[in-house]
C-alpha cells in the first residue's frame, strides 16, 4: 500500500513545487507599474455597483428571486459584479498575458528546458491569476458588506466561491489562448466576455427573457457563477448551487486538460 501511494505523493510534491516556481516567477515581475493595472481592475466592478446597482436601482426598486425572496436591486446586482470581476481578473491574466508569454516572448520555451512540464506552467499561471483575483474579490466583498448588501458570515463563504469562479474562467482562458492564432482574436474574446457580462443574469433575471434565450443564458459559465454567488450572498442556497459548483469544477478540469495538451503539442514539437 505504501509503495503504491508514495510515488504518487512524491510526484505530486514535484508538480506542486514546480508549478509554484512558475507562480513565483510572476511575483518577481511585480513592479510599481503593475499596481496601476491592479487598481483599475478593482475599480471597474465598484463603479458598476454604484452607477447601476445603486443609481439605476433607485428607479427599479425590489427584485424577486427565483425562490420567491424579495431583495433590493443593489443586493441583486452586487454578487453578480463580484462574479463578473472574478471572471475578468482571471481572464485578463490567462488570455492576453498568457498568449504573449507563450507565442511572443518565448518565455515558456526557456522554462520547458528545465524540469517544469507544460501542465505545471498552466497550473502555475492559473495560481498566479488567482492571487490577483482573490485580492480583487476580497476588496469587493468588504465593500459589499460595509454597504449592508450581505453579512460578514456570508462574505466569508463567498470568497472561496469567487476562487472557484476564477479557476474555472482562468482554465477556460488558457485553453482558448492555446487555440487562437493572433492578437486580433482577442477582440472576439472581449466581445464574448462583454456579452456574458451583460446577459448572464447580472442586471436582469433570466426569467425576463423568452424561454429559449433563458435556457441559453442558464447554460453559460458566468450565469452559473452569478447564481452561485448570489445565492450565497442573499442566503438563498439550495440544490441548484451544487449544480453550479459541479459545472465550474468540470469547466476548470476541461480547460486545464485542453491547455496542457495544446501547450505540449505546440511547444514540444
Amino acid at each position: 500500500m505504501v509503495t503504491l501511494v508514495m510515488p504518487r505523493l512524491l510526484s505530486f510534491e514535484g508538480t506542486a513545487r514546480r508549478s509554484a516556481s512558475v507562480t513565483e516567477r510572476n511575483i518577481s515581475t511585480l513592479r510599481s507599474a503593475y499596481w496601476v493595472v491592479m487598481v483599475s481592475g478593482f475599480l471597474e466592478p465598484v463603479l458598476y455597483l454604484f452607477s447601476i446597482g445603486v443609481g439605476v436601482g433607485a428607479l427599479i426598486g425590489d427584485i424577486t428571486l427565483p425562490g420567491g425572496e424579495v431583495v433590493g436591486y443593489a443586493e441583486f446586482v452586487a454578487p453578480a459584479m463580484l462574479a463578473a470581476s472574478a471572471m475578468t481578473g482571471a481572464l485578463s491574466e490567462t488570455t492576453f498575458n498568457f498568449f504573449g508569454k507563450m507565442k511572443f516572448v518565448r518565455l515558456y520555451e526557456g522554462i520547458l528546458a528545465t524540469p517544469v512540464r507544460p501542465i505545471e506552467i498552466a497550473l502555475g499561471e492559473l495560481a498566479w491569476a488567482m492571487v490577483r483575483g482573490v485580492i480583487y474579490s476580497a476588496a469587493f466583498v468588504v465593500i459589499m458588506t460595509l454597504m449592508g448588501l450581505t453579512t460578514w458570515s456570508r462574505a466569508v463563504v463567498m470568497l472561496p466561491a469567487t476562487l472557484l469562479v476564477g479557476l474555472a474562467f482562468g482554465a477556460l482562458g488558457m485553453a482558448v489562448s492555446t487555440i487562437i492564432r493572433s492578437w486580433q482574436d482577442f477582440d472576439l474574446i472581449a466581445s464574448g466576455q462583454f456579452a456574458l457580462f451583460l446577459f448572464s443574469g447580472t442586471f436582469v433575471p433570466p426569467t425576463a427573457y423568452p424561454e429559449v434565450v433563458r435556457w441559453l443564458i442558464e447554460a453559460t459559465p458566468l450565469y452559473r457563477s452569478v447564481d452561485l454567488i448570489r445565492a450565497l450572498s442573499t442566503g438563498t442556497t439550495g440544490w441548484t448551487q451544487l449544480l453550479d459548483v459541479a459545472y465550474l469544477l468540470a469547466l476548470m478540469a476541461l480547460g486545464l486538460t485542453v491547455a496542457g495538451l495544446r501547450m505540449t503539442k505546440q511547444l514540444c514539437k
Partner: protein
Amino acid sequence: MTSLIHARGLVKRFGDFTAVDGIDVDVRRGEAFGFLGPNGAGKSSTMRMIGCVSPPTGGVLEILGMDPRRDGPAIRAKLGVCPQLDNLDIELTVRENLTTYARFFGISRKEARRRADELLEFVQLAERADSKVEPLSGGMKRRLTIARAMVNQPEMVLLDEPTTGLDPQARHLVWERLFRLKQQGVTLVLTTHYMDEAEQLCDRLVVMDGGRIVAEGSPRSLIEQYSTREVVELRFATEDQAAYADKLAGIGERLEVLPDRILLYVADGDGAADEVNRRSLSPASVLVRRSSLEDVFLHLTGRTLVD
C-alpha cells in the same frame, strides 16, 4: 554508463518532412562535441530531442542513461540549455533571470543568489546585475543565456549555434568562456555552421547534411581524411570561372569550381601557385591557405557551409 548521449538510428519527422534521418551519435563525459552543418541540416531538431523538449519519431535515444520519453524532467534537471534564439525573461533583471531560473530546478533562494553572483562574475556581467535584459548587447545576452544554462550545475551543456548573429569580438569572448568551461571538465555539445567555431571548440564532431551524418572525427582527422594539406584559391577576372578548370588540369589532387573562385587541393600550395603562373593563366588573386573543415564539407556535399 559510458555515453552521456547514445543515439542509434535516431529519426525526427514533421509530417512528411524528415528533419533527422537515422543518425548514430555517442558523446562521452568531458568532451566537447559538435554538430557541424548548414542551416536545415537537422542540427537544431537533434538538439531539441537531446534536450527532451521534442519526442523522437524513431530510433534509440538515451540521455545520461535515461529515456527522454519517460524521464524528461529528471534528465532536464541535469542539462544546461543555451537555445539558438535568446529567450531570456525581459520582465526581469539580469540577476533575477538567473535566480528565477534556478527556482525552476528547485534550488533554494539563498543558493540561487549565491550561484547567480558567481556566474555573473564568470560571464563578466556582474556590473550589469540589476539592469534589465533589453538594453544588453547581443553578446551580453548570449553570455547571460550561457550563465543561465549553468545555474543547475549541469552534467552536460547544450549550445545551439552559440555565436550566430554576434560580431567578431563578441564571438571571441563567448568562445573564451566556453573554452574555460571545457577546461573545467564540463561536457559541451554544440551545433554550428561556422567551421572556425567547430575547429576552436570541438574535440570531436559529426558533419551533418540533409538530416544525415556524412562524416565523424576530430577536426584534424577529418581534414586529413577528406582534404589535402593546403588549398590554393584562385579568382579569375571573368564571369565564368569554370572556363579555367581545364587549363588547371593536373595541378594538385582535386579541384572545386565555385561561382566566384576555383579551389585547388594540393600538398604544396606555393609549388602549385608557381605552376599556375608557369601556365600564364594570370588569376586576379591567388591565396594559399591550410585546409579547413569548410573544405571537408565542400568535398563531402559539394556545397559550402555558409551560403
